[in-house]
C-alpha cells in the first residue's frame, strides 16, 4: 500500500539534526511556497478589441523546489503553477473583458554561492501558458486565447540576512522566454472557421525575442514567525507578443503574500519513513 507522509518543518529540523549526528541518510527537502495576490491588470487583445482594457485580478501561485539529490547541493528542480483571474474594462467603461489564465512551468537551476548568505540560481524553465479572454458583447469573436509554450531563462537571487534578531530572506525571481510556440489567430478569422471548420492555417507561430517578450519578476521577503514563515512581496509580468500584424499585451502588477515551508515526502516501496516518523497509516 502506498504511503504518503507529509511532515512539518519542526520535525524535519529535529530529524536532520539527529541524522547529522548519527551519519544517517540525508534527505532533500521540498521548499514549497503558496502565494496569493491582488493584481492590477492591463490587457490588450486586438483580436477582441483595439482598445486597452484595465482592471484588477487575483492570483494564486504554488511553487516547489528541491535538490535533485541530497548529495549534490548545486542543482535543484523547480515547478510552478500560477492562476490569475481578473476583470478589466475598456477606457469608456462600456465593456468588460474577463481574463482567466494559468501557467505551469518546470525546470532546473544551478546554485552559485558567491558570498555568505547569498545564492544565485541560474537555469531554464519550460512553461505552458494558457489564458482565456472574453468580451461577451462581441459577435463571432467573443473569445480569444493566450496559448503558448516556451523555453525560459530563469534566475533567482536570494540574500539571507539578519534584522532585528530575525533571519530574513530577500529573494528576486526573474523569468523570460527565449524560444517557443504560440497561438495567434488572424485578425479576421472567426472561431467558427478555426475550430468548427478546422482551418488553423497561420495560427501557430514560432516565437522568440523578435516577436514575444515576457518578463516576469517577483521580489519577496520571507519573515519567520514562531511557527510559520510568511512571504510578502511584489510581482509583475510584462508580456508583449506579435504575429499576424496584431500586437498583444498583458501587464500585471501584483502585491503578493503567502507562506513557505519545507516538506519531506515518503512514498512508495523504497522510500519508507524511518521508524521514528509516525504515520496515521501505521
Amino acid at each position, binding site marked *: 500500500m502506498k504511503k504518503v507522509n507529509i511532515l512539518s518543518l519542526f520535525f524535519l529540523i529535529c530529524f536532520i539534526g539527529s541524522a547529522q549526528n548519527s551519519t544517517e541518510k540525508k534527505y532533500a527537502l521540498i521548499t514549497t511556497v503558496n502565494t496569493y495576490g491582488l493584481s492590477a491588470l492591463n490587457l490588450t487583445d486586438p483580436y477582441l478589441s483595439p482598445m486597452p482594457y484595465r482592471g484588477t485580478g487575483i492570483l494564486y501561485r504554488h511553487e516547489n523546489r528541491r535538490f535533485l539529490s541530497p548529495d549534490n547541493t548545486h542543482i535543484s528542480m523547480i515547478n510552478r503553477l500560477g492562476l490569475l483571474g481578473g476583470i478589466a474594462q475598456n477606457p469608456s467603461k462600456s465593456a468588460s473583458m474577463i481574463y482567466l489564465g494559468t501557467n505551469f512551468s518546470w525546470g532546473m537551476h544551478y546554485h552559485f554561492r558567491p558570498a555568505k548568505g547569498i545564492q544565485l540560481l541560474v537555469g531554464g524553465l519550460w512553461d505552458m501558458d494558457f489564458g482565456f479572454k472574453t468580451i461577451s458583447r462581441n459577435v463571432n469573436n467573443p473569445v480569444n486565447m493566450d496559448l503558448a509554450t516556451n523555453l525560459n531563462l530563469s534566475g533567482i537571487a536570494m540574500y539571507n*540576512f539578519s534584522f532585528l534578531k530575525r533571519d530574513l530572506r530577500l529573494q528576486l525571481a526573474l523569468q523570460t522566454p527565449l524560444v517557443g510556440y504560440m497561438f495567434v489567430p488572424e485578425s*479576421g478569422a*472567426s472561431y467558427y*472557421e478555426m475550430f468548427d*471548420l478546422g482551418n488553423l492555417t497561420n495560427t501557430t507561430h514560432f516565437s522568440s525575442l523578435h516577436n514575444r517578450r515576457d*518578463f516576469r519578476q517577483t521580489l519577496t521577503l520571507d519573515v519567520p514567525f514562531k511557527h510559520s514563515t510568511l512571504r510578502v512581496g511584489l510581482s509583475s509580468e510584462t508580456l508583449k507578443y506579435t504575429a*499576424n500584424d496584431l500586437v498583444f*499585451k498583458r501587464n500585471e502588477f501584483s502585491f503578493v503574500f503567502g507562506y513557505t515551508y519545507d516538506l519531506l515526502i515518503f512514498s512508495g516501496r523504497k522510500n519508507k519513513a524511518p521508524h521514528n516518523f509516525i504515520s496515521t497509516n501505521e
Partner: protein
Amino acid sequence: MRPETIQITQLMKKYITIVLLSAFMLPSCMNEPQIQPNTYEGNFNSLWNIIDSKYCYLDYKKINWDSIHSVYQDSIANINDDVEFFDLMGGMLGKLKDGHVNLYSNFDKSRYWKWYTDYPSNFNSTIIYSRRYLGDNYRIAGNLRYALIDRGNVGYIYYGSFADGFTDNNMSYVLSYFRNCKGIILDVRDNGGGSISYSEQLASYFFTKTTVTGYIRHKKGAGHSDFSEPVEIKTPAHKTLQWQRPVIVLTNRMSFSATNDFVNRMQLAPNARVVGDKTGGGGGLPLSSELPNGWMVRFSACPMFDSNMQHTEWGLEPDVWSSLNPADESKDIDTIIETAVLLLK
C-alpha cells in the same frame, strides 16, 4: 551594518534597477497601432479604419470608401452632440448596404434594413397560426413548431430563429410524427438568422452523404482584397436521422444570415426544393470591434460563398418563385405554403 553587507546591497540595488529598466524597455520595441483619441474626429477615424481594413465587401460592392471618408469628415465640424454624431456614423455605415453592419451605443443601434423593407414581406404570422396550418394545437420541439397539414399528408415546421436551439432528440420526435407524410415543408421565412451550427445541424437531417455546400474566406490583411484561401464548408449527413422524402424550404426576404446559410446548404440536399422569395442575404460572417468612446461596431468580415464560389451576400433565389396573394391572404390562405403543398403531391 558591515561594509561587506553594504557593498552587496548596493550591487543588488544596481542589478535590480538594470533588470527593471530592461523589462520595461524591451517590449517597447514592437510597434503598436496608434489608438485614436476619444474625440469625434478620433472616433470617426477609428470607425473608418475598422471598416477600411476589416470589412470584407468593399471591393465586391464597388464602394469607394476613401471618398466616403472625405464626405463624412467634412461633416464632423458641424456635430453638436453624441446623438448627432451617432446618426452621422450610422449614415456612413448605411453606405455599405449590409444588414450585418451595426453601430451600438448606449442609446441606439444603427441598422440597414432595406434588404427586406424594400420588398414584399411574403409572410403573415397570423395565417400560419390559423387552423389551416399550425392551428392551436401545434407541437413545439426545441423551437421547432410543427403540425400535420393537408389532411395529414404534409408535415409543416415553422422555425423562426437560428438563435434558438433544438436537439437530435427534438428532431427525432418531429420526423417520427411526420412518418406517414409525403413530404415536409420547412418554413424559415422571417428567420433573421442566429447560429451557423444550428444551420448545419438542421440541414444534416436532409443529406445522405457529406457534401461541400460552400466556402468561407476571411480578411488576413488590411488591403481590401487581402483574403485567405477559401475553406470548404461541408454539410454532413446525420448519422442516425435522415429524412429521405421530399422537403420544401420556404423563404422570404427576411431569411437572412444563418438562414441564408441554411438555404444555401439545402439547395444541394438531394430531395429539397426552395420555394418563395429570394432570401435577404447576409453572406458575410460578422465580427465585432469598438471605438475609443466604447461604441461597438459589427461588420461583415468573412465572406461566404455557395458551392460554385459565388457570393451569397445579396441573397439566394428560390427554385420556385412564389409570393403571398392578397386574395388568398384575405381568406387566411398562405399562397407560398399552398404552392409547396402542390409540389409535394
